[in-house]
């Protein structure tokens, strides 16, 4: 159905996951919205739902969001079982209600993963991803006077491939979509970006080893080639970056430390 012949408003029934804290039991709260404009974004629809909940004396549902333009990585949500909703390569905040049918029932759940404890309702703790970056997701260069940027030519195809990986917004959708709750795609995106660039070479081995080990220690699972991560990724990050990370990890594992 094209945007033109879609109705202006639809009736929906929401089932919102409510949970007061990480150790409390949770359950779904049903909210009916009779006239949702199809031009609304999904989060604007949740704003309206929250207005209704508050008007009836309830406490609004907590959900993470900030930029509402698909780049900060703050929004999350599993919508009818799909991470970031039914469309490919977008975040929840970019999903619009024109993609839902009149009368739709919509189940809204948090990102569920061992590495992402629930904070409240639909909000989860994704600080594990920051800890993976702390284990080597950087080039060790202090602020100062590095060489001229053009002293380091990088072939365009390689720079473009590095940029493809660098586009990761750190939302954690890959973790939530993976049956093993693995953070391989997230971790690989950074390992791959920096291993493709000359700037990343001196720490190439220690980075791959450090980040993969950090991921393992933080309760994220391993990769069994399900490709769910790529399907859910709002930035379309390719699983070939995982293959590159695996090569980097193996290479470093079988090298002498000073050559890693």
């Amino acid at each position: 159905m094209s945007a033109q012949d879609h109705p202006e408003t639809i009736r929906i029934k929401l089932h919102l996951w409510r949970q007061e804290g990480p150790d409390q039991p949770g359950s779904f709260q049903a909210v009916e919205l009779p006239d949702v404009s199809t031009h609304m974004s999904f989060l604007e629809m949740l704003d309206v739902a929250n207005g209704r909940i508050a008007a009836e004396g309830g406490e609004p549902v907590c959900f993470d969001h900030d930029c509402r333009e698909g780049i900060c990585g703050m929004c999350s949500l599993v919508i009818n079982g799909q991470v970031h909703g039914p469309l490919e390569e977008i975040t929840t905040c970019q999903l619009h209600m024109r993609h839902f049918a009149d009368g739709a029932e919509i189940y809204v759940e948090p990102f569920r993963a061992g590495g992402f404890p629930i904070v409240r309702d639909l909000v989860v703790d994704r600080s594990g991803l920051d800890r993976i970056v702390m284990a080597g997701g950087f080039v060790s260069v202090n602020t100062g006077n590095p060489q001229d940027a053009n002293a380091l030519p990088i072939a365009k195809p390689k720079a473009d491939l590095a940029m493809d990986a660098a586009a990761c917004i750190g939302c954690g959708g890959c973790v939530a979509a993976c049956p093993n709750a693995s953070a391989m795609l997230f971790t690989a995106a950074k390992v791959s970006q920096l291993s493709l660039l000359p700037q990343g070479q001196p720490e190439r081995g220690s980075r791959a080893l450090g980040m993969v080990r950090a991921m393992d220690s933080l309760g994220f699972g391993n990769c069994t080639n399900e490709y769910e991560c790529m399907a859910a990724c709002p930035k379309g990050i390719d699983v070939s970056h995982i293959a590159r990370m695996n090569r980097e990890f193996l290479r470093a594992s079988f090298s002498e430390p000073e050559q890693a």
Partner: protein
Amino acid sequence: MTKLDSKCPSGPIEDRWRQHKFGLPLVNPANRRKYRVIVVGTGLAGASAAASLGEMGYEVVNLCIQDSPRRAHSIAAQGGINAAKNYPNDGDSIYRLFYDTVKGGDFRARESNVYRLAEVANNIIDQATAQGVPFAREYGGLLANRSFGGAQVQRTFYARGQTGQQLLLGAYSALMRQVAAGSVRMLPRREMVDLAVIDGQARGVVVRNLVTGGYERYAGDAVLLCTGGYGNVFYLSTNAKASNASAAWRCHRRGAYFANPCFTQIHPTCIPVSGDYQSKLTLMSESLRNDGRVWVPKAKGEARRPAEVPEEERDYYLERRYPAFGNLVPRDVASRAAKVVCDEGYGIGGTGQAVCLDFRDAIERDGKAVIEAKYGNLFQMYEMITGEDPYRVPMKIYPAVHYTMGGLWVDYNLESTIPGLFVLGEANFSDHGANRLGASALMQGLADGYFVIPATLPSHIAGRSREPVTTDHEVFEEVEKEARERNSRILAIQGSRSAEEIHRELGLLMWDKVGMGRNAAGLEQAARDVAALRETFWNDVRVPGGNDHLNPGLEHAARLADFLELAEFMAVDALHREESCGGHFREEHQTPEGEAKRDDENFKYAAAWEFQGVGQRPMLHEEQLSFEYVEPSTRSYK
């Protein structure tokens, strides 16, 4: 009236920063760990400052309101970052970048600051590249440049349409390296609710832990405010939902002067408002104006769809009015021109509040593949939001609030009028004058954080004896008590209006009267209306939930309470500034052709205001600006 000391150096402009740095004291590397610096915010300014100071050996405490420092709103900047590398050999120089920025700011910025900004910009590109930021490259492997918003040289570096993201992730990676090294303590999901001023110096902050609702205190030797701008006072803006003015406003209430609050930037290319549920506006990078042509139908109330309007019935009004710059005129000029044609009835779309940005000719000239390579992700974003395909039909765009040039007053060292309180990036007022040029915000945030504050921080902390302060000091007690009571009071009102509703009302009022066109009667009315709305808030707001757990509604209401004070103050500043300059257009002060009429005789100063109480007129302090290098002239883009 007190004389503000900007501490701007004198002498040849190209030597000023070097000379000034040489004159500043240093802190011995072994002593740096004895100083604790509190950095509020993790955007480009905050993350680059925290990382750089951590590397130098200071003990840094860094907090942010998001769940991760990587999500600060700098991440959303699309277009690029300027630097006068002159790689394209098209006549660029540091001086030209300086000149363009002073002129672009409509002669309301300090020459010394702007020159420093232009000077360190090259270093930013080198630094970011060394961190692995994947800037766009040419086939030979060297960095690519493009021209951007109002510049006639190609000096803008970019990483697809995600330059802010890539620069922020570079600064974030440096920051996380310091967190791992133990030199920076990172505190996410924390909001600064007030400043502790002890013996006249900034000595710490009181913070609300957004997850537990608990209050925390951090004492230190200096506080760096890197909290961005106040565009969300308009409710609808391109800012992220949580972007707010509270930290800056709380500091203003504690004695930091706030400068030029009426200098707000309305960005010309945003996706228009589609309905009253709208929660934010999305920017379409102005890089699109390099290839897109802006037009409206020549007939009022044109009924055909834009793509069906024949060539001879289109008015390419920017090309017509400004033949030299055409579609690339600076943001304030482009925005106002769009408002004028829409106000006259030529606007398109259901609301009449939109103009066309058309790629038909560019696609014919260069082919779809070239346009897709340049703007693919932006076109995709546009289609996702509007359901229309910009390869086939013209984009609909309209101006929206995007950036605020005003902010806390700082001297050349970035220190506010409260000693020990430094303000970096968009939160300060210093470098963009009355209008910011495209690709200059990223430049300023990173200049302040990577290169200015590491040199100027010792001006406050070195060689001064300072009583050690702990968080059980009575000032911390008092400040925390006030903050707790403020939230309790908001929760206790239990009236009939939601904070969302009141904020929307505030936004409409500000957009209408303190937006793109302003006049005395409207501004006086706006100040009265805001004051009345503030009463409504404090008597009739209804905020659900409690103070002792994650409660986004309470966070929003508390920020709105501060916006309701700031908004009135913006109207007061706009009313006092009887001239048109940059983003501030007073309808009484325009040329017969409708261009802005600046008044250098009476208003060639930064207006730094001192807080006198809520609803009280703040006290004005003028910092006179001198222009020794760039002779103030009427900006002409014709």
